[in-house]
């Protein structure tokens, strides 16, 4: 199946992953051979844009472009790890709830609804204050653990409706056990939907991470795009004239969200045939 928005979205993602992976060393070897542009105090701080420093230098005397390029990777990593954690937890719980009828389902449904209404931001802020040394993995796992309820909430009804299909009845009659039914019958048709939810979770996690950084309470010192934006805001780089140091990281975040949004729109069309007929019907 060909779907333009999925293709464009994936292409955009691949592009930024390449920048994230190769960017730091390319910038380093092309523009600053033999220097350490990420070390504090390497240059005079707050230099305006110049051929040597395309987006200037930051308040710590580091090269802005190098900081930007090396911030993309951690941001993406947090999004992917947290998104994967949230999606796997949510899919497991959603499958158990959707597959088990009766009391277990009721219990899990209540649990999901409860966790869903607990506002995550205050809890995240609190955890952020309690944990002394943040690293990327800790932060990602915590973001993921807070994100599962949404996934479970949307996966459960999908499993429930699939479970009632006659081909599943057939599988039950032919003696497949619960695990076989889950992995052979229920999971494959839901994969595009799970991809859709995964991508939403990535967006949610990156959003939360950058939000925490911007209000200044997040994982201080993790070099992410959110941190760069927050630092730029605190150092009022816009007033100094270093536009790029805020617009580039903000733009990169929006770029990633746009790419994932395109993939989602495409997956939605694949998964939800009703959208196709209405679009064609018009």
């Amino acid at each position, binding site marked *: 199946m060909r779907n333009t928005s999925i293709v464009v979205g994936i292409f955009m993602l691949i592009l930024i992953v390449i920048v994230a992976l190769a960017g730091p060393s390319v910038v380093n070897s092309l523009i600053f051979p033999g220097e350490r542009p990420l070390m504090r105090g390497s240059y005079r701080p707050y230099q305006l844009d110049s051929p040597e420093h395309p987006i200037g230098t930051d308040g710590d005397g580091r090269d802005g472009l190098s900081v930007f390029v090396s911030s993309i990777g951690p941001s993406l990593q947090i999004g992917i790890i947290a998104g994967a954690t949230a999606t796997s937890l949510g899919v497991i719980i959603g499958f158990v709830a959707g597959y088990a009828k009766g009391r277990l389902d009721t219990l899990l449904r*209540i649990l999901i*609804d*409860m*966790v*869903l*209404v*607990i*506002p*995550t*931001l*205050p*809890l995240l*802020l*609190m*955890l952020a*204050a*309690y944990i002394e040394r943040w690293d990327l993995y800790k932060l990602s796992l915590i973001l993921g653990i807070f994100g599962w309820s949404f996934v479970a909430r949307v996966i459960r009804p999908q499993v429930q409706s699939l479970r009632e299909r006659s081909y599943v009845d057939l599988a039950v009659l032919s003696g497949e056990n619960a695990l076989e039914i889950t992995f052979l019958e229920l999971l494959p048709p839901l994969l595009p939907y799970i991809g859709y939810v995964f991508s939403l979770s990535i*967006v949610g996690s990156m*959003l939360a991470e*950058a*939000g925490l950084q*911007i*209000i200044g*309470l997040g994982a201080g010192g993790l070099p992410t795009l959110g941190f760069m*934006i927050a630092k730029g*805001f605190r150092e009022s780089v*816009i*007033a100094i004239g270093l536009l790029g140091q*805020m617009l580039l990281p*903000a733009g990169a*975040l*929006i770029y990633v*969200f*746009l790419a994932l*949004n395109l993939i989602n729109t495409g997956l939605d069309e694949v998964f939800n045939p*009703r959208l196709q*007929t*209405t*679009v064609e*019907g*018009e």
Partner: protein
Amino acid sequence: MTANIDARADESATERQDAGRREVFQYAIRRFGVYLFTLWAAITVAFFIFRLVPGDPMNILLGNLTRAEGRQRDAAAEEAIIAHYREIFGMDDPLPLQYVNYLRKAVLGGLDLGPSFVEYPAQTKDLVFRRMPWTLGIFTTSVFLAWLIGTGLGALIGWMQRHGLSQLAVILSTLLQITPQYLVALGLIIYAGYTLRILPAGGPYARHLQPEWSWEFISSLIQHAILPMLSNMIVIGAGFTLGMRALMISVLGEDYLTFARAKGLSPFTVLKDYAFRNALIPQVTGLAIIIGATLNGTFIIEILFQYPGLGTLFVQAMGLRDFNTMQAIVLFSIFAVLTLTLIVDLALPLLDPRIRRVA
């Protein structure tokens, strides 16, 4: 004879109406029961999450105190301080007892949520009530306006979907919808607030004013609220626009619209009475779904705009590890999200006659 039949038909009609009303009533009661239960359960989960977080808040508080005083640590005094505060906060009791006490005080003691650290000995309850209007004001006004504008705009864009302007509007709303609220807020602060200086970008009202019923104060209040509300509205409004557009397009394919057009109704009547009304119902449900996430966003926006709402209070409370205040704010957020969702859910049968009959 005919009169008799008519009377009987009338009777059964009123009976049906009564039955319908009874069903709506039962639905409301059941929905309210679910609401109370979820409220209790969510508060319980929040309580235990707060207690399960590693690290003793008392130690952190003490660390802050000694650091602020710049003094050598005095073990005996420290013990005394810790014991004192642990007693105030009832932290020596076993966890289940703490929980029961907390619920008992909160429900029977008229929302007694304990003293606060931030403004000791002010009651947490008073603190939260003082800050709440700021948060709710920004939050409800911006969500409501965004919903109105987004729904209207989305209906229009969906209706004229092949118009060039509509396609431009779709691209714009998609871009705005994926932009995080806080980035919009930062942009507004930097450009509207500091670069162009059109609107104030910090605080609830001008520094030299006192809250009073004067035109100067009220206009300052409104001016200060515009940018925080805009940050919320732009993003949510774009989401509602796209949602309503999709709903509108799916309604446009329905047979009853073709029929209405074939009847020779004016395009405006078709749009207003046939397409719009039917697309509206899922859009109201959509309102219920975004309430929670938007409250989170509002907290961040408050902090960025130094707006004296609950989000800012939470950050202050966190600096002091003020357990009671933080918990009260979480409690309030849960209550607000659940209550607003309940209101939307109960309003649905009024909007949609189908739910009224089926439910």
